[in-house]
């Protein structure tokens, strides 16, 4: 298979790679760039474990081709903490013991960030609706929702770091 050139920024780092055009974005992240924080739970766009942010939008990276990220900016869970400081959402997940097995956590963090970037003050209903695509089998979602709502209801916690 003829390889194609892709230029993509991932977590602020520019990459130019020759890749097989049939690979998905999650393959690019995990196998080509070694960013294994993004998980694969279904490869069918239905569990949300592979959620990353591309040009500001939360997307399921298992269900788009890597080539579709050409010229785009991609943020993964590895890019959330800056200069050794956790992102407020990460800190809130810890403070609320939001996760258990942790497998869906990276996807949840990215979905939550995309939502809060667009709507910093969602209602709980809006938040739950937005998180419908991120399945979790351990937590019953309770503490995840609490952790994200805590950030949403205390904008200072979020904007202080994020701007």
């Amino acid at each position, binding site marked *: 298979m003829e390889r194609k050139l892709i230029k993509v920024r991932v977590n602020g780092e520019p990459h130019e790679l020759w890749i097989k055009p049939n690979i998905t974005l999650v393959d690019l992240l995990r196998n080509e760039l070694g960013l294994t*924080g993004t998980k694969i739970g*279904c490869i069918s766009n239905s569990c949300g474990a592979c959620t990353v942010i591309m040009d500001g939008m939360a997307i399921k990276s298992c269900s788009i081709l890597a080539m579709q990220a050409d010229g785009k900016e991609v943020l993964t*869970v590895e890019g959330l903490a800056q200069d050794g400081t956790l992102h407020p959402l990460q800190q809130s*997940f*810890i403070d609320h*013991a939001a996760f258990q097995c942790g*497998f869906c956590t990276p996807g949840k963090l990215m979905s939550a960030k995309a939502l809060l970037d667009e709507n910093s003050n969602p209602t709980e209903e809006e938040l739950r609706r937005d998180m419908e695509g991120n399945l979790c089998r351990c937590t019953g*979602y*309770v503490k995840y929702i609490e952790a994200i709502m805590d950030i949403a209801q205390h904008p200072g916690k979020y904007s202080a770091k994020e701007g």
Partner: protein
Amino acid sequence: MAEYRVIGKDLPRKDSIEKVTGKALYSFDVSLPDMLYAKILRSVYSHARIVNIDTSEAEKLPGVKAVITGKETWGIRFGFVDTPRYPADQPVMAEDKVCYIGESVAAVAAIDEDTANEALDLIEIEYEPIPAVFDPEEAMNEGAPQIHGEQVPAPGRKCAWQDWGVARAARSFNPVNNIGAAVNIGYGDTEKGFAEADYIREDTFVIPRTNHTCMEPHGAVANYNPFTGYLDIWLSHMGYEVKRYWISKTLGIPIGKIRGHKVFVGGAFGGKAQAFDYEIIAALLSRKTGRPVKLFLARDEVFTSTNNSVALKINVKKGVKKDGTIMAQHVKLIGDMGAYRGSVPVCLFLCHSMRDAIYNIPNLTHEGVGAYTNKSTTMSKRGHGSQQMTTAIEAQMDWIAEDLGLDPAEFRLKNLRNKGDILPNRDRLNSYGLPDCIKKVVEASKWKEKRGQLGPGRGIGLAVSSMFNGSGYWPFTCASIIKMNHDGTVTLYNAQVEFGQGPTTTMCQLVAEELGLEVEDVNLVDGDSELCPVDYNNWLSGGMFVSCKSALRAAQDLKQQLLKVAAEMLEEDAEALQVMGRRVYIKSDLQEVVTFDEILRYSIQKHDGDPLIGKGFNKAVPEIEFYPSLSKGSGRWTDAYSFTAAVAEVSVDEETGRTKVDHIWVADDCGREINTAICQGQLQGQSVMGIGDALFEEVMFSEGRTVNANFVDYEIPRALDVSQITTIDASDPDPNGPFGAKEIGECARAAVIGSIVNAVYDATKVNVKSLPLHPEKIFRGLREKTN
């Protein structure tokens, strides 16, 4: 609790940073130099002879390094159950026939996944379909297709229980009429009990298969070194001990040469406990190629080949006095085993034993059979038997209460056992928080005001459940080591696997509490079979009670050693000393202090280099020497029981039959909460899992084919399905638990399912005797009622 500094608090999890930064390593994240990728070719027939397999074209494909079929593993058997009565019955790969759709037939290792998949397409298999049977009752009929012949252990082969040192040799087993498991337990005189009852009721329930749907699919990385003969494995699992036993047993690799490495596991729920074909296949391919092999299953393979929960038909007959005293119970179970025995012999037994600590039933008969069918195998899932049985028993309890005009809560309280009781099998109820669970959950939910008062379409229901804390037949032992570090901190070595349930945090809390340290002062080396002492892990919820207790015992051992040396240094009696903040004090004179690192240096200098190492071990049921009998239920089962009482409040849309769970209250007796946030998380998670079980989860088959093997067609609860959940601590500390603690990860699910079922009945008076409570079942029932 004011008396404790570290336990009973919602301290952050020790695995926090790794899990929120994406650094937590799961087995699928492991990549090794020169690694190959493996794929499995699976049967597309429910029941067929394999006439021929031609792998020649696949072998020729560039990049393919190995192709294997059942020829490589012919005659080898493994299984969840491998006892004198029930020999292991599962081949690693199909031999001369396939018994279910999804069974492994061939496997390929290649330089990348695309090549491996392409190679699978090139394998030609000639099948000759034979009649199949999918329903366990049809399977038991005379003349039904026989799935297996007589199971004769290979000459000289020891069964697993024999290898584990406590049982005699396996006999051969002939599954006449496809019956592959049976249980017959009883005490008292059931017929006499029924004769003395004023009221008898009999109901039959159908509980379907459900899937664990761990977010992390199953898989393995195996790395066999052909020069040393060592095999390294990274698995998605619940404890390496049974995994490496079966890899050793099936492939002949000495167990001491198999190392299970620490990884995080993305959920388990009982579904990753047993050994799997794909793990043995990955190890075999690695040995064959001399290269590391990664083998991961796609989500549809997880649904079709890694075992669902056990589907049961449950018939319950109960005899009760007018005043509500239960006189007798007779249970008859029919288990749908699938193509191999799976955990069904255990499940049939647990259906009784998981619930025997709840009600005082003087006369009881518990019978069950499991039949082979041409479907995938079935296995433990969070509660293993408890949730199936609880659904049936607790629903019937409510109908009896209604018929006799009793309040369901009072009816239950009247029939409970008592703290201190000795069960018919000799288990003792040293702790028994169940009455308190019921009282607290009834109070918190305002049960008395609401029951029967909520108006049309709304209802409230109660159910109770119990759970083992490890068992005499698993885990056998768990052990821990703690070493002193030169800065006064300690390092704990314990091989429990972190699959979300939180031992990496809670066991460090126990150690910190005992040694007067902070949790941050306890380093942890965990989940590795070479770095840590033996640990048979968290099965049957033995994690806290058995394994974490071994960590506490290691801390107690180390503390004694520290105090002994400190006593020598301070010229005091050890009893006059106490530990706190990496120091030892004289209780009466807090100025007299030696630090842990001073004690360590002193010990090394004056005591022949003794670096102070604490050791702890623990057996689940200390007094017993032999396993209980699965088929007769004799022998002790567990050393402590946990309990849950749950109340659910629901609304049922009478136009559509759709149920919405509005609020769940769950009161749990876990002995003592070690980490309150983790405890709440376990109860919330089980509550929401229970919503799925009660309302919509069911693995569906058509002619043996799983028709909903994905997250679109197999629904699990999502963020919007979640109601309000109130968790209540109703703990009764157990004298044998670490600081009184018992399990909290498994008990509640069953009670929650039962409470929802009972709430839906309260709302609709529609008697649905099968799970899940699909809207159409309720709708149909409502319509029948109006007509």
